[in-house]
């Protein structure tokens, strides 16, 4: 029982990341009808917003301290980050909270990137075949990831969570299990709550605002909405930018869990596409459900007990589930009829 609960929890944070990326992918697909292979790259760009923010904050000023000397007798160099030198304790606090604070940087940056991408490139591909859309966004993903590689190098850059949430909680003891059995890092809880909040915000936005209503109408029947005199294209630009922000935020908050490197986007993209397809192309609740489902399944499959019976299952479980679901339920878990079948 306790083992199952632990695996359930472990699967949730990965599932949260899958769900967030898949949500954006589905949003773009459902409204714009574009298959965006560059969505993983947006996730990666978000993560590198956090890296950049942290690098900016930790720019250091070098001062000499004449009272102390090094082993060689020269004055000791003291390196203090500018923010600490200028803002004192608040600067230290900022450095500590650099990951959550980089959301402030990531939101405008991702909005801008999403806007430029849609207006500059995707817009011209609405009427082209899906194969062309896949190919051009695939090319874009390569370009984005190579640019990041050229700037930040090929090695992963670890980011640390704020000190307050750095450790792990023994949450098993709360529910009456033996202490030390179910230990779960605080940051993963934060991530989970964050993913839930973002998902809820996106759904609320689509469900309760006039803008969201138009977007939903556009997803259902784009031509009719256009005929009603609504400039659906402009809304779609905003939708694309929102999807980019969602992917970017997922990336920012994921940095303490997985040190970002340039190809993390591609790694997540393949899985997210599987998630989207399993959930059903064009179904937002399907994407979220499938994201968590596959995340949890993956963590169950990596249990030693399961691996003993079915060796290698942890490596292929996601793809296996995708194959089975696609063959048994061709439209995925919650897909609509007639979407993307030809």
């Amino acid at each position, binding site marked *: 029982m306790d083992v199952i609960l632990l695996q359930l929890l472990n699967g949730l944070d990965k599932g949260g990341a899958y769900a967030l990326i898949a949500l954006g992918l589905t949003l773009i697909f459902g409204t714009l009808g574009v*298959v965006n292979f560059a969505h993983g790259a947006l996730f990666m760009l978000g993560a590198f917003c956090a890296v950049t923010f942290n690098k900016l904050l930790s720019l250091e000023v070098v001062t000499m301290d004449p009272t102390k000397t090094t082993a060689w007798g020269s004055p000791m160099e003291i390196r203090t980050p500018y923010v600490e030198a200028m803002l004192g304790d608040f600067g230290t606090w900022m450095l500590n909270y650099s990951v959550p604070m980089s959301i402030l940087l990531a939101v405008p940056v991702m909005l801008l990137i999403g806007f430029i991408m849609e207006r500059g*490139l995707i817009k*011209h591909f609405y009427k*082209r*075949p*899906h*194969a*062309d859309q*896949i*190919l*051009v966004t*695939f*090319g*874009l*993903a*390569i*370009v984005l990831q*190579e*640019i990041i*590689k*050229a700037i930040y190098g090929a090695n992963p850059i670890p980011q640390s969570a704020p000190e307050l949430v750095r450790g792990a909680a023994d949450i098993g003891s709360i529910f009456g299990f033996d202490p030390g059995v179910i230990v779960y890092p605080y940051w993963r809880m934060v991530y989970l709550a964050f993913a839930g909040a973002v998902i809820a915000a996106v759904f609320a936005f689509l469900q309760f605002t006039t803008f969201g209503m138009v977007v939903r109408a556009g997803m259902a029947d784009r031509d009719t909405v256009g005929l009603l005199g609504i400039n659906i294209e402009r809304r779609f630009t905003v939708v694309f930018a929102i999807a980019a922000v969602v992917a970017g935020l997922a990336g920012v908050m994921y940095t303490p869990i997985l040190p970002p490197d340039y190809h993390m986007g*591609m790694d997540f993209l*393949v899985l997210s*596409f*599987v998630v989207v*397809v399993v959930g059903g*192309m064009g179904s937002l609740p399907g994407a979220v459900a499938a994201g968590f489902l596959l995340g949890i399944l993956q963590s169950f499959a990596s249990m030693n007990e399961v691996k003993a019976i079915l*060796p*290698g299952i942890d*490596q*292929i479980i996601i*793809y*296996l589930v*995708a*194959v089975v679901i*696609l*063959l048994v339920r*061709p439209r995925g878990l919650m897909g609509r009829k007639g979407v*993307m*079948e*030809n």
Partner: protein
Amino acid sequence: MTSKTSPMRDWIFFVVFAIAVLTMPIWLAPVGAGYPDLLQKFMIYGLFATGFNLLFGLTGYLSFGHAAFLGVGSYSAVWTFKLLGMNPVPAAFVAVVTSGIFALLIGYVSLRRSGIYFSILTLAFAQMSYNLAYSVLTPITNGETGLRVLRSDPRLFDSSNAVDGPLIANLFGIEMTGYAGFYFCAIVLLIAFFIAQRIFRSPFGIMLRAVKTNQNRMNYTGLNPRPYTLAAFVISGMYAGLAGALLCITDPLAGAERMQWTASGEVVLMTILGGAGTLLGPIFGAALIKYFENIFSAFNDQTLHEIFGFLPDFLEVPVVAVTSLFVGEGWHLTLGVLFMLIVIFLPGGLMEGFSRIGRLFKRSSGKSDSSGAAAPAE
């Protein structure tokens, strides 16, 4: 896909192509590509892309998992070396058969769906094969180290046991390295190209194009497209397996990274770059990518400074800084940019570009032909 075809023209086309391929070491030497290792790569990846094109170019089914067949072909070739000996012919044969069976299994399942679902299914199968080759199947694939032929292997029909030095595939005494290896690959490519040409012109090929153009209409005429697409998928998988075998024949080592989805992406790139649905395009695209990969990744800041040495200093430094992003380690950036430009402006690939230029000349000489010689391929 020229509008006017006749058996005679096809033969002339094939003979010209064969001569061009066999004389490659001569006419590619001035551009720095006249050495056997690179020429072998041209042939092998040309074969791979030709096979991929038989599926994607004709039926429009975009497979994102073709590297799996390349990998299966490689592994079975190395195993044939290990068990039977270093002769490339049985290795190639076994590779074609196993990858064909593998393609039949995957194709039978994947082709039940079309569109992006098909792409995802093939991708899923390829990733499964890759992950398994790395983990559980290590006894067969030798995992991360890669599978190689060892001196202690049985090699039943091999006489070269006494010879020292590295084990190299040899065809009845001819070692498959250098130019011998290139000509072996070239002949295999020519045979494969000839078969591909026959398929393009056959009723079977026309059926496959019908699948791409309008599957509904095909269903209404009472034809079931699936046997045709499955046959195309299997043939395409066999081509990939053969290419994988050739990779091992020229260098007897098989690694799992050949099956990764980036490798599948590469063959898609080659085909699109050259022109999907054309006979020559994929080979052209493969050669171009391998050529630039070789040339560009060899550049470094030093050579760039030499190239731009004629510029004044204040210009030279920024120019070198910018171009160095695109060469050497950053060669993939060039590839990505090139690829995007092709998809955006020339969806039919370079072959469409050529035929556009060709039409431009025709028009200026008075004969305008607006029907379009090459239909833009997806």
